[in-house]
């Protein structure tokens, strides 16, 4: 089970957190267009590389936080134990 670097708790089992999704700014509801709003609602970058995402430390501190994860190798930019220096991609 992946260890997720919660900035408040420290490394935690991923089962203790929820991945909320990609971190995207919310368009201004007063001026937004259907195209822009629905891109915000539905579209994803979904990269196989680094991705900025929001997590919720559900069972731990209850905080929402933003972090970067490599979705190809399932590694965090700042891994909890400082493991695997360098770019992932080789792993698995």
């Amino acid at each position, binding site marked *: *089970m*992946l260890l997720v670097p919660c900035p408040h*708790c420290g490394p935690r089992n991923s089962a203790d957190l*929820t991945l909320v999704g990609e971190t995207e700014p919310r368009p201004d509801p007063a001026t937004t*267009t259907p195209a822009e709003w629905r891109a915000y609602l539905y579209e994803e970058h979904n990269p196989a590389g680094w991705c900025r995402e929001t997590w919720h430390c559900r069972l731990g501190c209850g905080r*929402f936080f933003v972090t970067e994860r490599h979705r190809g190798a399932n590694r965090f930019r700042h891994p*909890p*134990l*400082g493991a695997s220096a360098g770019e992932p991609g080789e792993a*698995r």
Partner: protein
Amino acid sequence: MSPQRLPARPGEVIDRRRPLSFTWNGRALSGFAGDTIVSALAASGCRVFSRSMKYHRPRGILTADYWDPNTLVQVGDEPNVRGGHRLLEAHMAASAQNAWPSLRWDAKTLTALGGRALSAGFYYKTFMRPRWLWPTYEKVLARFAPGGVIDPESAPRRHDKRYAHPDVVVAGGGPAGLAAAAAAGQAGAAVMLVEHEHAVGGHLRWDGASGRAAASELAEAARAAGVEILTDATVAGRWEDNWLAIVERAAGGGPERLIKARAKVLVVAAGLIERPYVFAGNDRPGVMLSQGARRLANLWAVRPGSRAVVFSANAAGDAAAADLEAAGVAVEHVDARTGRTVTAAEGRRNALERVVLSDGSRLEADLLVTAAGWTAPTSLLNMAGVRPCYDPTAARFFPAEPGVSEAGAVLSTGGISGDGTLEAHVSHGEATGRLAAARAATLAHRLRVATAWAAPVNGPEPPLVPDERTPLGRHRHPALFCSSTDGMVDFSEDVSSRDLRNAAAEGFDSVELVKRWTTATMGSAQGKLETVNTVAVLAEATGSTISEVGTTTWRPPFAPVTLGALAGRPFEPVRVSSLHDLHVAAGMAPISAGQWIRPEHYGEPQAEVRNVRANVGIIDVSPLGKLDIQGPDATDLLSLLYLNKWRRLAVGSVRYGVMCAEDGVILDDGVTGRLGEDHYLMSTTSSGAGAVEVWIQNWLQTEHPDWRVRVTPVTDAFTSINVAGPRSRTLLERLTDDVDLSPEAFKYMQVRRGTVAGVASCVMWRIGFTGELSYELHVPAGHGPHVWSALLAAGGDLGVAPFGLEAQRVMRLEKGHFIVGQDTDALTKAPTAGLEWLIKLDKEDFCGLPELRWALDGEPGGAPEALQRLVAVQPTDPAYVPPEACQIVAAGPGGTERIIGRITSSRYSPTLERSICLAQVEADHPGAGTQLTVVDVSGRRHRATVMADHAHFDPEGGRLRG
């Protein structure tokens, strides 16, 4: 079957003073404590243990260990027991699998006659015509399903799980693993050593007196170093950050136990697995691997044959020859290193009689032992991202250099890493153990520094120790995979080298494709014995090298794990209100609503409805979500969450609100009361309580971290009791003295705080989900039972009685209140539920605002979209209650029918004495008086009418305002 037990041998693991009787296919036999099922059977003279899957060929002992593909047996109600591993027990009832009607004469051997056509994948090429006959073919094929018998009625057993956080886990208790564990323990690490067999020592256990002495010395050192030694246990899998599944098997097939370990460092010391050699007849009983023969002779004192040919390419084979001679077997040694090789094993029926060599010579023998080379079980390393690399000199795969991954959190040692003397392996193991302990210390330091609640760390981080181990050597080994003849490559799946070559010719020319087409490597040993030979045959067939072909992906688990162990003890949380025991005493019919157990009714829901309408009833609504919201910006938060406005809600009043998600779909609803200037109590649906809390926190923390507001879940802090019915005020007046309950002082949609039945700090709000005059009491939970009992005691003359969820559902439907998730679905936007009146588009912002604006006003350049519409519906036949989810249809083009909606809620109303419904229908069919056609589950069509108002009963609301 003639007995093959030898006189007592040094190092044997059987206890001859403890004979055990057991049965094999119903026949009474005996063995000794310490025997495995297979060794006891072999000692009794048994040569055939199973029939092969496809061709039903007789099969004997191959490896005499856990991975032996030929000795899976049924023990009692347990299928697929590894007979080469499972220890014999008194009165064990073992039987062969895949044999019908008997092991000696198997009727399905007939398939071997047609075997000419039964090449791998033959079934894809036939049984297609006629199409209607395929189900029959399928039933016949299914008779060939291999494996034992499971009894779905057998009693479930309890399996425990536990978590562990060791510094170092060593997978494998051979010499290198033991040395690594001991060294790590001596360096101060908390170490777990996991050994697959019943005792530690690895191959030293059957390697003569000096081997045994070395094994016990190493084991003693590990024990002295405080190593936690688990035998008959397997590291079944390794996932991110060294999350390990360790399975402890129990004696006698008892419940297995799963340990979930977060190891700081994993040391893989899984040793080597001997590889079969492929030649004609290599699956004939009597053909055995050198480790199998040595184990039988040395551990269990079983003579594996009387006249043996030993085909040896390495020291283990030479040792097997010596062991067999010592056991009184006549041995002919065929040295593979001289270029001689075996081409066939021949005989009649189930027996081996002759071994044919490449030089054409024929040797009489009833035992052929092969020592053709090794496979490194790199599975755990592969799961850690280490790729296996083929070394043609050593003729086996090794973990990629340098056998280290993930900041050094995974190491390997022992045979999997290289070759050498016992001393070299022990010394490499010790170096690995020291390295593991040092690395664990570094990682432990980092964990503590990062963890909020860990003890503070003062010193600097111990440096990440570099890997300066002297690597083990690699010995030259002949590349022996397949002889000049074709033979069995996968014994479990009955896949031959010819099958593999044909598959390659047919275009299944990569290892993954050939695996899927032929099912090679997919049997009980999951490729541990078969993969490398498969790769070698394929490489030859496609004119490439073993390195180019590569291996298939090793998938977890390393060894199969029972579902019971994986499941462990089920944790299914149960939530109950503080009134639960009172409900049970009152004879509630319970219903599970999410994690909650609630009273559905107390006997007669229809009577409960009538009592509320006529007198007064009380219902436990404690699971309603409740959030305490405080702070100067609390009103802004409510305005953001709800569709409607909150600024002008007076202190002491409550208001209904609906929340939508950002796509305009209804998320939740409830009432919120203003308790003070900056203080609200919000209620949510019971099922949505958790999600709404997270939803709010998300908005507060990510979009509005500057807002001064605190949201605290207080669902469980209150026992919530709804007192409903025309006599509810009278009842409550008897128990309240500090709140003026008169209709003038405490109006509909107001909130008061006061004392009920002597309990202070109760929140009371006057609302009416049931449509009656009613008060919702939120009582400090510990006092809930007291207040509930007081209400029942005080209102005896008023006819007070508890009512359950079902009566409430009927009454809310009579009033036309929708339930989020039942009358709405994942696409239901607010206007569909008739909530236009609630949507305040002139607010600066609220969740879902843009979508709702476009839904009401139309998108720029587009028209408002045609939505479904929630309407009240009454069937023409008042006695007919359409089941919920029945479809509503209208005439479509060409005399067809088209679905235009569905019944979302339906009940028989005892108040109106007729059936009532809510339904979603297309927006152009919702006008009052519209006639609809409802299709019953039986297919019958029923007429129904759309009503003017959602409320079937008291649409003006006079009763609840009274």
